[in-house]
């Protein structure tokens, strides 16, 4: 299952963080710092998987943003890599040509999208269309 998802920029600023396991605040900051250090200097030619403590981080870089998923060691790396891409596509579609600022100013919407995509650490919807439609409905709620 997914332990947490992080969106960080190159400077290490957290743009979105969602934890699916209970953690202390101090521990969260430490994780964010460590994950950033782990992924930021990796060459684009390197693998998208890094072993991280007893888990592994699947990350992908889009422009200046790193999308990192921390998953169990037995989980399927490629599937989660694909799901990161799917998530980015959804964001891109929703914000039409998404950029870092969209995510910053609309962080609550990003959370809503994420909650339609992942629930309790499991992928709940694999259809981009369904999520976009769902978000449309949600926007209409008062």
């Amino acid at each position: 299952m997914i332990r947490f998802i992080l969106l960080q920029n190159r400077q290490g600023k957290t743009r979105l963080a969602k934890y699916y396991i209970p953690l202390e605040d101090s521990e969260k900051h430490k994780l964010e710092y460590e994950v950033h250090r782990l992924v930021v200097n990796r060459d684009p030619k390197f693998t998208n998987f890094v072993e991280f403590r007893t888990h592994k981080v699947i990350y992908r870089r889009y422009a200046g943003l790193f999308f990192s998923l921390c998953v169990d060691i037995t989980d399927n790396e490629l599937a989660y890599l694909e799901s990161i891409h799917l998530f980015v596509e959804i964001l891109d579609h929703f914000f039409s040509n998404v950029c870092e600022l969209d995510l910053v100013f609309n962080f609550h919407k990003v959370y809503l999208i994420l909650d339609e995509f992942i629930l309790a650490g499991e992928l709940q919807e694999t259809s981009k269309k369904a999520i976009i439609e769902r978000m449309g409905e949600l926007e209409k709620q008062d």
Partner: protein
Amino acid sequence: MASAMMESLFQRTLDDLVKGLRLQMVGESRYLAKALEEVRKEMKSTDPIIKVTALQKLTYLQMACGADMSWASFCAVEVMTMTRFSHKKVGYLAASQSFHEGTDVLVLTTNLLKKDLGSKNEYETSLAIECLSRILNADLAAALTPEVFTLMASSRSYIRKKATLVLLRVFVKYPDAIRVAFKRLVEKMDDADPQVVCAAVSVLCELTLKEPRAYLPLAPEFYRLLDKSSNNWLSIKLVKIFGALTPLEPRLGRKIAGPLCDLMRKVHAKSLLFECIRTVTLGLRDHTGAVKLCVEKLRENMDLGDPNLKYLGLKALAALMDSHPWALAESKEVIIKCLNDGDISIQRRALVLIMGMVSESNVVETVQVLLRYAQSADASFCNELLSSILQTCGRARYEIVSDFGWYVTVLSDIACIPHSEHGGEVGRQLMDVAIRVESVRTDVVRACCGLLADPALLGRPALQGALCAAAWIVGEHITRAPHGPYEVLEALLQPRTRLLHFSVHAVYLQTVLKVFVSYAISYQHRYFAKKEVLEQEEVVTQRGSLHAAVELIKENITPLMNSVDMEVQERACNVLGQLQPFEDPNDIHRVQDGFEMLTALSEVFSLDLGPVSVHAQGRVPLPENLLIENNLDALGPVCGSDDVLLNTGEAKTSTSYREWEAEFNFQPPSKENLSGVDPSSAALLQQHRHRYENFYLPSDAPVVDYPPAQLTLSAATTASTSHGPTDSSVFNENSLVWTKPRQAKARRPAVVALDDEDDLPGISTPVSKKGLKDELVFEAIRDALSADRNKGHSAADGLETPQGTSSSRKSGHGHRSTKNRDATNPRVDEIQIHAGDGVGQEADSQTPNVVHREHRRSRHHRPSKLEIHVINDGLSSENESEEYLATVVAVGSKGV
């Protein structure tokens, strides 16, 4: 009113806050503090809009800047209760971001969540479910299980999906929920909406990975789903489940091998392909066809050049390493190429594989390749390479090394590689090889002389271990030194040796002494034996002459007499002391005296040193007058208090206490025994105790916690071998029995209770809480599955003949159930547990024995799959109705 309007007009919106934060290049913390102060004020406002905005801002600050928001949890609950959806969602977001199990306001949310879960608006329900998945604790889970259970049957697939997924968290926090909801979870695998099916399988996948055995009976369902699945994500989960199940059930492997191979051949998604490969490496290693296909696919994918595929390929090959070495051999070239990859994770994986492939036949070329890579690799990977070479070659007494001359050069090469930090291990292995392999000693000494002579190595602290070993080896075997002792002396005394650590330097000095002794003796043989006259001019002038050596040593060692380190200082003094007779070459008498002394020393030095075998003690013959048994009899109570293996020398290493007891005619100590203790020893002990009071445990404290009998016994044996019977009697009896006879006696019964007594009726061993929970879960799953299984076929049957005739199956059951006719009683028990647990806790307390007995049985002898099925089949109909009833009752009672 007006002030409220002013407030809302002048409140900073989220956008303002974000913009402000972005503008703060420096002094962000001050800005943050100010913003938090504002938020704090705004939260006290009565205007809901201001409050909501403030909470949203705080949520942002918590996420982006790590601000603490635990103080605002009550406000979050307030906002959650608001009726407008746009407000409510802000509250829910804040809660799911900041609440945790211990948040005190969680108790306030129970009713709110209950209401929102039952809301007509599916988006509100969805918010509540999401929040629930984050903040769930045991109480909430217990209170809300009925709601989640109801939502799983909702008419809207959107809700069904979410409720199914959140079930995993509910199970984790509240295992009793498994009784209630597991059956419905299994039903969801047949849901009309594929996303719901996917959710159910995801949950089952997580559960299966935790405790695969419990879910074996569901295998036919999983198989059916996999067969018709067209969704890759679902297939991945199913294949993963099989990866956990097949190692437990070989028949399942046979069944699944064909479909998996088909899938691997036709699938385009790499993720699914690699999941299949993983399952094959986990559970289908015996299916040569499947493994071959895997290896083929792996090679195809690794050749594509994508680093991700390369990495995953290496990982999969590593899983095949032990069982199918040929798979690695076939891909050897690709693997070696990966060593040069820039990515450290790929390099590491490749290294592991290469080391796994090393055998006696290819070790030479492999190590050469690795050393070549080590020369160019960066420091950390270089050291990983070197350490794995050392580890692999040194394994099991150099099992794979046949040419030790070659290995010694490898060791010295490793020491000389610029980044090398493995001086200690190189030194240990050099020493080990020098001692163990006599034929190769000359090579070792040559290599060591090379190491000692290289001034560059002295400046590298990490290599001092190797230099220390080299110095010792050369000192021990100086006669084998290739260029003679004088060169060695020069190497040992070169100026850079002052960079050495004191402990290593001390070894150097000792070596100097040994080398000098050997040198002087050989000198004496050469000249004095023949001529009996010292040819002065030769002695004084020539390089390499005795006098030159003396001067060389004196010059370099004299400063060390003032060394800070005592060991170095002492050895320096020793060396110089030995040189004194040779200071004046004209004083023939003194020189002669000196030679005599050196001859005596050389005899001492010529003794071969070596390590002492761990079994050496066992080879020492027992003295005849040693009476071990007599004195140890009294130890009985203490020995008995620990059910450990007694280590009484080589022959007894694996004797259990029982056998030992029988062998020695063990009798529990009677009063005579105890009173028969030698009074003098008692007095001795008293004295000792008096003097070293603080090293004794206080007499009122329980003594039982310290060293088990094993230690005492061996200590006693050694003591008695060395000091004779009297001493050992003092040691044994007083220290262990006589002083604390009571405690020792009191503790004994706890140990003697052995397995067979566990099954006595009425005695229940205490079960730890965690164990209890696990067993409860296991049992509940079994029950739920058994209900599910009532369709009439067991998992194994389903596997063997998915569409087989029912008559043959029935006969099969009849055959088995005769074996298990005794299962009637447990059957009744099980039903009791069900009903009891379903209704409430008071029923639970009425049948503790049954529950416990169930545990114990399943713990010591977990019922095999076969047994479970037979029991289930026997009571399929009643069990189902009972289970159903229990479920309904539970839901009803909790719903109230």
